[in-house]
C-alpha cells in the first residue's frame, strides 16, 4: 500500500518523465522496479486493477485470456506481468491504450511479448484512438528516440466507439475527444460493470490538460459527463458501476460527480474572468481555485496548481 505522500512523490517523479516532451521515453531507466510496489486488487466481475507507480493498469481475465487497459512504464512491465500471472496464465490478447503518455503506453512492447503463451495465435491487438498511433509513430518531441513499432497500437479506431467481445463480456471503447489529450479512450467492461477512464479522471489531483497534445477543459468536462452517463450507481449513489481512474483509488459515479462539479465550477469562474478581460496574471492573483487547492492542488511536482490554472486559462481564452 502506498501512502498518499509516497504516491505524490512517485507521481511527481514519474510524471516528469511522462509529461515533459523533452524527456519523454528518455528516462524510464531511472525507475528501479525493485523499489516499486505493485498491488493487484480485485474490482468486480472479471476485472482487477494493478496499482503502483505510473498509471493504473486494468486487468480483465477469463477463459479467453487476458485483456489490459494500459501497460504502465516500460521498466515495470516484467514485474507487472509477474503480478498478472498470479491471477491468470492465459495469453494477453487485447491491450487498450487510453492515451499516449508513457506511464500508460510504455509497457506496450514488453507486455505484448511477455504476455504471449503457447495458446497465442499472434501478438495481442493493441487498440487506441488513431491520434495515439499518429503521435507514437511520428517524430517524438525534443530529441527523443523514435518509439519502436512493436509498441504502437496495431488496431486503431477513428469512429466514436470500438467494441469487442472477450471473456464472456462486451468491451466498449469510447473516444472522448480533446479532453486530457486528443486521443483519449475510456473502456467499459459491460458485464463486470467496470469503467476504466485513463487520465481524464484522476481523483487525487487537478486534471492534467495536455494542451500540447490536444487536450482542453471543455473536452475534459465532456469526458467526465460521458463517464457519468455510462455509470449507474447502486442504491443511493454508491457502488454499481465501479470506476478505475488513470491514477489513484477505486471510485464510483459519486466520486466522478464531485470531480466533474469541481472542474465545471472552475470553468464557470474562469469564463467569467476571461469575459471581463482579465489577464492570466490577474486570474492567478484572484486565486479562483482556492477552495479546491487543498484537495487537488500542489505547489511541487510536475503538475502544479499554477500549471493547471494556466492550462484552464489558455484553453478557455484561446490565448497561448
Amino acid at each position, binding site marked *: 500500500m*502506498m501512502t*498518499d505522500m509516497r504516491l505524490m512523490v512517485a507521481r511527481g517523479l514519474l510524471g516528469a518523465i511522462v509529461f515533459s516532451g523533452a524527456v519523454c521515453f528518455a528516462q524510464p531507466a531511472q525507475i528501479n522496479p525493485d523499489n516499486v510496489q505493485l498491488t493487484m486488487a480485485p474490482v468486480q466481475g472479471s476485472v482487477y*486493477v494493478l496499482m503502483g507507480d505510473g498509471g493504473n493498469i486494468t486487468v480483465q481475465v477469463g477463459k479467453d485470456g487476458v485483456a489490459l487497459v494500459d501497460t504502465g512504464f516500460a521498466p515495470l512491465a516484467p514485474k507487472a506481468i509477474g503480478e498478472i500471472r498470479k491471477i491468470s496464465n492465459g495469453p494477453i490478447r487485447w491491450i487498450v491504450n487510453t492515451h499516449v503518455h508513457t506511464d500508460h503506453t510504455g509497457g506496450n512492447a514488453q507486455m505484448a511479448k511477455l504476455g504471449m503463451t503457447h495458446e497465442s495465435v499472434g501478438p495481442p491487438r493493441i487498440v487506441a484512438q488513431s491520434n495515439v498511433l499518429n503521435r507514437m509513430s511520428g517524430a517524438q518531441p525534443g530529441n527523443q528516440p523514435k518509439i519502436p513499432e512493436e509498441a504502437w497500437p496495431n488496431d486503431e479506431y477513428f469512429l466514436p466507439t470500438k467494441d469487442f467481445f472477450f471473456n464472456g463480456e462486451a468491451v466498449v471503447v469510447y473516444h472522448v475527444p480533446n479532453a486530457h489529450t486528443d486521443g483519449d479512450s475510456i473502456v467499459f467492461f459491460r458485464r463486470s460493470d467496470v469503467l476504466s477512464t485513463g487520465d481524464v479522471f484522476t481523483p487525487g489531483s487537478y486534471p492534467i490538460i495536455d494542451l500540447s497534445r490536444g487536450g482542453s477543459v471543455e473536452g475534459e468536462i465532456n469526458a467526465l*459527463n460521458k463517464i457519468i452517463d455510462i455509470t449507474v450507481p447502486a442504491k443511493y449513489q*454508491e457502488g454499481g458501476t465501479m470506476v478505475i481512474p488513470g491514477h489513484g483509488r477505486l471510485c464510483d459515479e*459519486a466520486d466522478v460527480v464531485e470531480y466533474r*462539479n469541481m472542474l465545471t465550477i472552475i470553468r464557470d469562474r474562469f469564463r467569467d474572468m476571461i469575459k471581463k478581460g482579465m489577464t492570466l496574471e490577474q486570474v492567478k492573483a484572484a486565486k479562483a481555485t482556492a477552495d479546491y487547492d487543498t*484537495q487537488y492542488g500542489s505547489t511541487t511536482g510536475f503538475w502544479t496548481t499554477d500549471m493547471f490554472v494556466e492550462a484552464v486559462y489558455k484553453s478557455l481564452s484561446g490565448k497561448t
Partner: protein
Amino acid sequence: MNRLPRRRAVSIGLAVAALVALPAFAQVDFTGEWAPLYHEDGPERLPGPELGDYTELPINGAARMAADTYDADRISVVPEYQCRPHGGDYSMRGLGNLRVWREIDQASEKLVAIHTHLLAWDSERTIWMDGRPHPPDYAPHTWQGFSTGVWDGNMLTITTTHFKTNYIRRNGVPRSDKAVLTEHWTRHGDYLTVVTVIEDPVYLTEPLVRSDNWYLDPGQNIGVFGCEYAPEVPRPEGTVPNHLPGQNPYLKEFADWYGLPFEATRGGAETMYPEYQKKIAGEYHPPEKCQRYCKCTSLFDCNVTSK
C-alpha cells in the same frame, strides 16, 4: 473422595460458566431502537442550517470559499445529488431514527461487529469489533465509511475512514474524503450520547467536536426511506449551480436575522471559543423578539415561523 451433590455441582458449573462468559459481555449493549433528541442544534439539524451560517465550525479559507459559492439548487438540479445520502459523520446528526444490533460469532461467542441502520437513506454501517485493520488507501470510499470499534471501559470508541466527499453542514460547508471520524458512544440507562470528533486536513484547522443524544424507544418502527432521482428542472446536461466568488447575495441574511456581526458568522477556530465573545462585544445586537425557529424541539414544531 467426597462427591459434591449434583445440584450443587450444577450450580457451581453455571457460576463458573457465567464468570467465564462475563468478559465477553462486560461492555454496554447498545442494541435496540433509538429515537433522536434534537435539543442540541435543533434548527440546523431539523429544517436545515441557514445559508451563510458557519458558526462553531473550525473551517479554513478553502471550506469558507466552497460554502460561499455553493448554490442550494445543486441538490435538485444535479440528478446525482437528489439521492445522495448524508455522510457517516452527518447521518448520526441528521434527521432519522436509529437501530443498533450486534453480530456475535456463535462458535466463540465473541462480538464481531455492531451494525447500525438509520432512517435517512436507509444508511447502514458496520462497526467491526474483531480487530481487523482499515482498508488500504486504494480501496473505494463509501458514504458511511469504514468503521472499527474498541472498548474503553463502558465507552465504545469508533474510528471511521474512507468516507466519500460530503458536507459538514448542509449549507455547502464541505467535508473531504480524507477526513477521519472518531466517535465515543456512552449509554446512560435509556439514553445514548454520541460525541463525534471530525479531523479533516483539507477543510478544518482543528478537530470539530459535536454531540448528539438518543433515547431508547422499543416501539419504534423505522420505515423504508426510498429515493429515486427525477430531473425536475430542464437544464443543459452537466449544469452545476454555483455562485461566482463574491456574488452570493444570501450570505449576510443570517447575520442580519440574528443580529450577529457578519464576521462572527464566517466560522474559523477563533470564533468557536468563549474569548471571541469579548472580541465582538458591543457588535451583537439580538432581535428584541425571537423571529426565527423560536421553538424547535421536534420535527413537528421546528419551522421558521414557529413562535
